[in-house]
């Protein structure tokens, strides 16, 4: 056998090829696992059906819902974007821990920032697989066309995707530090933010002190923006810019936190010890 030259050249500070390699590892699993694909789409579909019937009921009993029939279904689908975006980052990360693959990855030229980028892109893929079927089926089932939101839907989707990734990165960092015993944070962490994200009700329905917390989250600004489009037909630029600004700050902080936890993992020897 002819050995190739050793790949002993300086490595790029950021390589999209390495990002794609990490994505490929997860796409290989997804593409032939129909139970996984089904699981991704299952909850958004169930949620859509459940809230579709709630909407039908409230159309005759609530003037607020009657003003904008799609408000609850749009809210639940956007909530699923946030939820799935969080899982889209944290689940692939803990899969590396379950399969005792973290050490292998980190003795390769893969950089911490490339892993984060790959997890965020995987989150986009998984989120699209999750919510797209429910978004399309809401039309024949309940006569709600979520895409009626138009271009603002892209802005809402992007902001929730990034905020979901922020939560996923933070949760992944905590699981790296505290081990797989903390893996339930993947599912539980985000629900802590649900009441103050003003998903199904306006921020001003919250007590004053909670409104301050709500408005410090990109999610509350996004759901306020969604209601602005559905009820008033207006895209609330102020809420959009708040959501973007907060996402930039929170994503930076979450990334720094993850990098700090990686450094701690190198001090405490956690990268070699992970696994079930």
């Amino acid at each position, binding site marked *: *056998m*002819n*050995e*190739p*030259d*050793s*790949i*002993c*050249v*300086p*490595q790029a*500070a950021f*390589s999209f*090829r*390495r990002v*794609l*390699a*990490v994505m*490929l*590892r997860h796409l*290989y*699993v997804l593409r032939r*696992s129909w139970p996984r694909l089904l699981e991704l789409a299952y909850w958004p579909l169930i949620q859509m059906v459940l809230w579709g019937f709630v909407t039908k009921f409230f159309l005759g009993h609530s003037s607020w819902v009657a003003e904008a029939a799609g408000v609850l279904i749009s809210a639940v689908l956007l909530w699923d974007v946030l939820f799935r975006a969080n899982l889209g980052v944290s689940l692939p990360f803990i*899969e*590396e821990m379950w*399969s*005792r*693959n973290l*050490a*292998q*990855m*980190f*003795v*390769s*030229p*893969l*950089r911490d920032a490339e892993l984060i980028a790959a997890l965020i892109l995987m989150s986009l893929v998984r989120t699209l697989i999750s919510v797209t079927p429910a978004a399309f089926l809401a039309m024949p089932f309940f006569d709600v066309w979520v895409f009626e939101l138009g271009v603002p839907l892209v802005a809402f989707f992007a902001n929730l995707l990034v905020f979901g990734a922020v939560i996923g990165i933070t949760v992944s960092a905590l699981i790296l530090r505290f081990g797989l015993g903390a893996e339930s944070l993947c599912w539980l962490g985000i629900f802590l933010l649900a009441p103050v994200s003003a998903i199904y009700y306006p921020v001003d329905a919250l007590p004053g002190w909670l409104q301050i917390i709500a408005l410090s989250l990109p999610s509350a600004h996004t759901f306020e923006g969604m209601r602005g489009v559905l009820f008033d037909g207006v895209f609330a630029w102020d809420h959009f810019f708040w959501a973007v600004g907060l996402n930039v700050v929170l994503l930076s902080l979450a990334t720094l936190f993850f990098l700090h936890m990686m*450094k701690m993992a*190198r*001090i*405490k*020897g956690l*990268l*070699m*010890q992970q*696994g079930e």
Partner: protein
Amino acid sequence: MDSAAQPAIQVTDLSKSFNGVQAVNGISFRVEAGQTVALLGGNGAGKTTTISMLLGLLSPTGGEVRVLGARMPDERHKVLGCMNFSSPYVDLPKRLKVWENLTVYAHLYGVRDVKRRIAELSEDLELSSFIKRPFGDLSAGQKTRVALAKSLLNAPKVMLMDEPTASLDPDTGDWVRSYLERYRARTGATILLASHNMGEVERLAGHVLMMRAGQIVDQGAPTELITRHGRETLEQVFLDIARAGDTVPVGAAS
């Protein structure tokens, strides 16, 4: 990074402690390019901790590690592309097929012609009969060969191997050792091997570092060690050293 004068591995006064337990305690050694050196010691001697620091997976508490001139872990990205690692204590994703795992890692290491390299390794390491099977379905011997293939994807200049034949039957273990001998002869790669298999160490290593309780307590060529201790086999030397002196630190990573 690749100067002829500099050693492949240079370890100076290296220490690592975990919550007050000294896993590695002020060790120093160097491995010249093209040499095969074995870290020999019982459980808890500090072999895996030392290898982890060489790989940049673990930050030292004190001292310095340099691999191909790069200080680990801070400068690891200068050299990780020309190193690789194999251990039964880390895994590859079990649901991925063998060729999928190798493809992912070939891209991570920046291998130029991925398909060709995998085909070469598949032929060389006799993977073809199970290359389309999920990694998790393989036997221990097959997994070891796949792990070896992964560790050779980038034709590394420095290979770190943690107990490469642990849990293998004698025939498969012999096959792996023969392969490593041929690979080293063909490429001139530097190999650092952690093991407590005396036969393996005698066969592969030109120099042995005997570790106990986080320290290097003796070193030399296998024959030198046997002569110096007045014994007939390296195993007897190992037992002399392992049973002498300090107890193994409880809880130290090894």
